């Protein structure tokens, strides 16, 4: 630990000096030039101030990330005396034939895509309502924030009660209006995944709503007024004015939501533990069980690598298409 910390400042100093020239080039134009010694002092001071943040991040998240990738190429097992060797791509070839993993991957995609899209649609509706000067706004705003604040475990416990087959209010209501009221929502093969997705939307909607609302409030009123002068309907105004102005915000919040949803663990783990019969086995749950129940930590790391790679690729594709559309819009 000590050698690490005594080594790092020099490393930090070295890496910051190549960054020096550009700043140096820029300063004379705007500010009075500083003597070189003082600039170096300030840089050293900056490095010292940043170091306490940088160190735990390097040690506890960057290093583990690198090690995690390395682990994927070993046959490491989670046992008392760790004794493992490099096995090359064996984990990955094994993974390729693992039908359960790919089924879990498919479930993860269904979950992440549907939760993200439903979140976006529901949040957009709520944000538009909150932006149109109705009463009950205060209440709705508070309600819209609570799911965000609650511990995921509590959310899961709460929805288990809602979905409860015998004493749950959902079945009681369905029964009351003459529909079948004996559905075991979280225990039935066909309803488990949709039921879990609804909870995912409930949890994630608030943050998206707040973000979209902030975006809506930045759109100048003149744009809407001009459009209504031209006789545009509410729907046309939404499509022609609101959506284009929100596009960058929508792109970023959707990508973030997608990643968060794909990486989500706690909610579904507490709700169903991946059941029934693996119907809600999100990839993170699958990997967790492989690592900490089956104790194949190297194999689990390989799963992690595959998941991360796919998500990054998908995201790059999505963002690329968004930016391309933006460019086209500019040309027009």
């Amino acid at each position: 630990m000590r050698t690490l910390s005594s080594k790092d400042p020099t490393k930090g100093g070295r890496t910051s000096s190549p960054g020096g020239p550009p700043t140096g080039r820029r300063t004379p134009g705007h500010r009075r030039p500083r003597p070189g010694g003082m600039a170096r002092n300030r840089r050293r001071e900056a490095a010292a101030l940043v170091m306490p943040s940088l160190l735990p991040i390097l040690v506890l998240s960057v290093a583990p990330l690198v090690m995690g990738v390395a682990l994927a190429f070993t046959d490491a097992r989670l046992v008392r005396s760790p004794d493992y060797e490099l096995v090359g791509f064996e984990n990955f070839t094994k993974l390729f034939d693992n039908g359960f993993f790919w089924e879990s991957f498919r479930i993860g995609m269904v979950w992440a895509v549907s939760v993200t899209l439903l979140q976006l649609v529901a949040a957009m509706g709520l944000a538009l309502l909150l932006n149109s000067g109705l009463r009950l706004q205060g209440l709705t705003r508070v309600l819209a924030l609570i799911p965000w604040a609650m511990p995921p475990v509590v959310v899961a416990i709460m929805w288990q009660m809602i979905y409860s087959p015998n004493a749950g209010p959902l079945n009681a209501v369905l029964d009351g209006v003459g529909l079948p009221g004996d559905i075991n929502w979280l225990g039935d093969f066909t309803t488990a995944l949709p039921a879990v997705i609804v909870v995912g939307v409930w949890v994630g909607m608030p943050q998206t709503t707040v973000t979209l609302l902030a975006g809506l409030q930045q759109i100048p009123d003149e744009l809407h007024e001009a459009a209504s002068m031209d006789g545009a309907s509410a729907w046309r105004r939404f499509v022609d004015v609101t959506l284009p102005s929100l596009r960058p915000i929508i792109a970023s919040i959707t990508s973030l939501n997608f990643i968060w949803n794909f990486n989500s663990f706690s909610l579904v783990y507490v709700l169903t533990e991946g059941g029934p019969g693996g119907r809600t086995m999100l990839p993170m749950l699958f990997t967790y069980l492989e690592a900490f129940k089956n104790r194949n930590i190297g194999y689990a790391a390989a799963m992690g690598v595959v998941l991360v790679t796919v998500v990054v690729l998908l995201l790059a594709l999505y963002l690329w298409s968004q930016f391309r559309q933006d460019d086209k819009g500019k040309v027009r």
Partner: protein
Amino acid sequence: MTVRSLVRPAQYAALVCYILFLGFPLLWLLSASLKTSAELNSLTVSLLPREWHFDNYVQALARQGLVRSAWNSLLVALSSTALVILISLPAAYVLARLKGLVRASGIGWILISQVFPVILIILPLFLVLRTIGLTDSLVGLVLVHTTYTLPFALWMLQGYVTGIPVDLEEAGAMDGGGRLEVLRRIVLPLLLPGLVATAMFAFVSSWNEFFFALVLLQSPENYTLPITLKMFIGGEGKVALGPLAAGSVLAAIPSIVFFSLLQKKLTGGLMAGAVKG
């Protein structure tokens, strides 16, 4: 004209649907925490409890595990909050006052870290923490929580720092007084609301956190509140439904209180960061 007169009622109908969807589960949890176990298990379902019955709360608090783990959660959340603030304050200041490439890469890294694949990090981290004897330890959990709250805390704080004009600092420096003196006398007081908001955010993140606690903690006396609540479900099933609901309500209260205090600041801080970044 007729179409227009229908718009408002339709909007209100939609708003009521949202309120029901968002609020009903909360109401149900609250009401379940006030019902007797006989009523919870009966087949006639009603939203309001027949009579208000606070015994569930007494029972939940009487469980050794729950109080103990609430205490653990509090310790972990307070320590990681203190650490996060201590560590991120200087770095956020530097980040906010930097310009050009360094700042851009700093901000970029913060954003990327928001999407870090947790599962890939926890595997080696578990091995590392085990070799230094920090798995199944609250100290280890504090370290992990600190690291994972740090990026967002940095993001929030640097947004608040950018809101403080540099001129103020320069004026302070003119009056004489060292750099640290200026920071303490001028920057810190102005930053206080931002610091409070960031601290509350860090506290809530740690208080709510489940995954790392699940992986790292093994012995029941070290469990944090979320883990204990999860164990309640597995163990006793329906019988403990009332106390489980009561415990859940209690566990959610600190987060909800902090978040409602935070509401405006959180979005404000995010926006400040976003605009400047």
